[in-house]
């Protein structure tokens, strides 16, 4: 039985195809014009990788910003549930997921079945998200991917106190004008972003193990700062953090399939 998960986000679209309890294909593409197009494209690429065609999919679940409009998805789940389930599927010991994506940042606490028991999402302000990192890293002329590595060289991170990512930029500019080292500013940026996440994370009762997902989890600087500030060690996940959402959707689809089968058996 083939279950598929499709995550149409703000920048990229992701698809995961599962056969029973094994991932057989996953794909990430950049967004096309409409969410429907992106979903179709990413799904057909993933299907090609798995050597399948559209009619093979028994059940598909969608998530992400465009989740409501995917024609071939039979159900949709919120990103929060999908991230939780995806991380839980990858490692059954995970009880808290910190997901820092492009536009938002969520801290999710899970129950023993991988379902959401409590969550918090940034609503006041977008400082502490991938987008603010992107803006700030461009400001100091360091590519986003290298921000983490660059910041590790620093001994004295500059303090960045402002809460708003746009006005953080002014502060960063000021430090640049003063001639502070790029590494120090990069470290300051990472620390500031991590701090915003920590403020959010403390609202939730966090339990071990904690996993970090989303694009920002690739930034070693933010991750280390988070570990230091929260005094935890993140549980490394065996899958690409970017497809966690689609993976969670696929798991939901697979679960739904199982339910349907059980119902058939019962009948």
């Amino acid at each position, binding site marked *: 039985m083939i279950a598929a998960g499709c995550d149409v986000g703000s920048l990229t679209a992701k698809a995961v195809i599962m056969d029973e309890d094994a991932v057989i294909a996953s794909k990430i593409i950049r967004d096309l014009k409409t969410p429907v197009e992106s979903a179709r494209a990413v799904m057909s690429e993933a299907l090609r990788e798995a050597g399948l065609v559209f009619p093979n999919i028994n059940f598909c679940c969608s998530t992400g910003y465009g989740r409501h409009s995917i024609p071939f998805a039979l159900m949709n789940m919120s990103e929060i549930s999908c991230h939780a389930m995806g991380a839980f599927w990858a490692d059954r010991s995970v009880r808290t997921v910190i997901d820092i994506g492009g536009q938002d940042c969520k801290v999710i606490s899970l129950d*023993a079945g991988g379902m959401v028991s409590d969550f918090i999402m940034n609503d006041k302000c977008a400082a502490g998200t991938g987008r603010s990192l992107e803006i700030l890293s461009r400001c100091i002329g360091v590519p986003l991917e290298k921000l983490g590595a660059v910041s590790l060289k620093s001994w004295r991170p500059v303090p960045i106190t*402002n809460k708003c990512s746009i006005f953080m930029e002014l502060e960063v500019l*000021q430090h640049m004008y003063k001639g502070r080292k790029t590494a120090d500013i990069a470290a300051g940026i990472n620390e500031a972003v991590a701090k915003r996440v920590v403020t959010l994370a*403390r*609202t939730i*009762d*966090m339990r071990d193990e904690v996993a970090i997902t989303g694009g920002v989890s690739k930034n070693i600087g933010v991750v280390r700062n988070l570990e230091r500030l929260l*005094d935890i060690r993140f549980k490394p996940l065996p899958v690409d953090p970017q497809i966690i959402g689609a993976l969670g959707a696929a798991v939901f689809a697979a679960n739904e399939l199982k339910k349907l089968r059980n119902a058939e058996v019962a009948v």
Partner: protein
Amino acid sequence: MNVRINLRAKTVFELKEYRIVRYLYYVLIRGYYLALLLLPYGVISLVARYVLHPFIFNKETRFNKYIRSALLWMGGGLHKAADYRAHLPIMRIILDYLRHHVEPIKNRKKPLIYLGWCVSPEFMRAFDVHYIIPEAFSVTGSWLGRDVSNHMLEVLESEGGSIESCSASKFAAGAYFTRQMPDPDLIVTSSHPCDSGVSFYPTLQNVTRVPMYVLDTPYGDDEDSYRYFAGNLKAMISFIEKNTGQKIDWDRLRRSCEELNKTNFYLQELTAMTRAIPSPVSSQQLTVAWAMKLMGSGSPHLTEMARIMYENAKKRLDRGQGWLREERIRVIWWDVPIAFVSLYPWIEKEFGAMIVGGDLMGRCNTPYVDTSSEESMMLSLAKVHLNASMVRNVRGTQELFMDEFEQIIAEYSGDCFIFVGHNGCKHGWGYGRIKKDICKRIGLPALHMSSDYSDSRNTSEESLKKQISDFFIGNGLA
């Protein structure tokens, strides 16, 4: 499966219990005895003023953050040599106030009351109870360094408190959640000055689960309103009597009211003297006096402080001498950002600018307390409450606020007007147009900044300074 672990306990955010109070208290006691010892020689005042001043006030750095609070208490650069004597009573006031924190921590003998911001503490003196003003933490705490206040605000925000509220309430809540103050037996608060207090105290009550009395503030400014408020004060007295078992000592109340009258006389004179050009009173002195009045209203030390400040200022006035060697700009400043301690010395030094009028201590128009009978005392104390700075400005119609504003502009001959829009002060933002129109009508250059009372994450000190200097230069004042 892992056991449920609360990770909160391990975060570096954790501040030790009662850290702020203990630190302040013990540093202050040492400073006090040192000052007593060295005062006759005038040594510290010299050292503080000329040697340490540059380290203390110019910038917020890691080095001076730790030593500043200690030196601040020794009067580091706050006063001139003559005014330095006023620092001893100041230290006594703060010590007396901090004792209300420290004694209940050690061994609670008397009941402890949380007292709302703007509820003046004379009654607590008459009851012989301990009292803590939670919001005063935003004043005392910020002396310990700006990261302390940021820390408190962050704690509160991560507890889920209201982010948009006044940072004084937020600071207080943060201080409670990090256990900087002992649990109370009673809460007495008021529904003034603004929504932040109105909405924050029920939370304190919810977490502490103690009885709370709310002094309801009337909107009007007539005799009926005063009578209503006096009635509320009476109800408050019986509430405290019922819940603590302590009886009010009317004689003590009378004594502290008389003390208050004396203080007010000096303070009124002091603020009136800022009308002189050049002004013989420093803006820092006024702010310190305001903070002290918050903590020690009705204390003889407050009178002592006010008297010394007054006498010195009077001498300067008679000589025609100003506080600054050269006073170039006279600023009327509404809503001073208290946590930015280094802002005043900076504008004084950099631009020769003096803050001559403002809403906190600009025009001290506290009514006289008529101590002839219990009845009259209650009524005039109601007037005192409803006319305290910050309360009279915002509890009623705009005329109460704007008339005073126009009067200050007329009387204090300011060259410009600076208004700091605090994030939490919805009133100030709501007045925007009216205020600007007044400035326009009078032709006073006005700067309206967006900042926060004690939150440097909102607007940093550098940005404030840049805005101010741009304003001064742009208007040809500096």
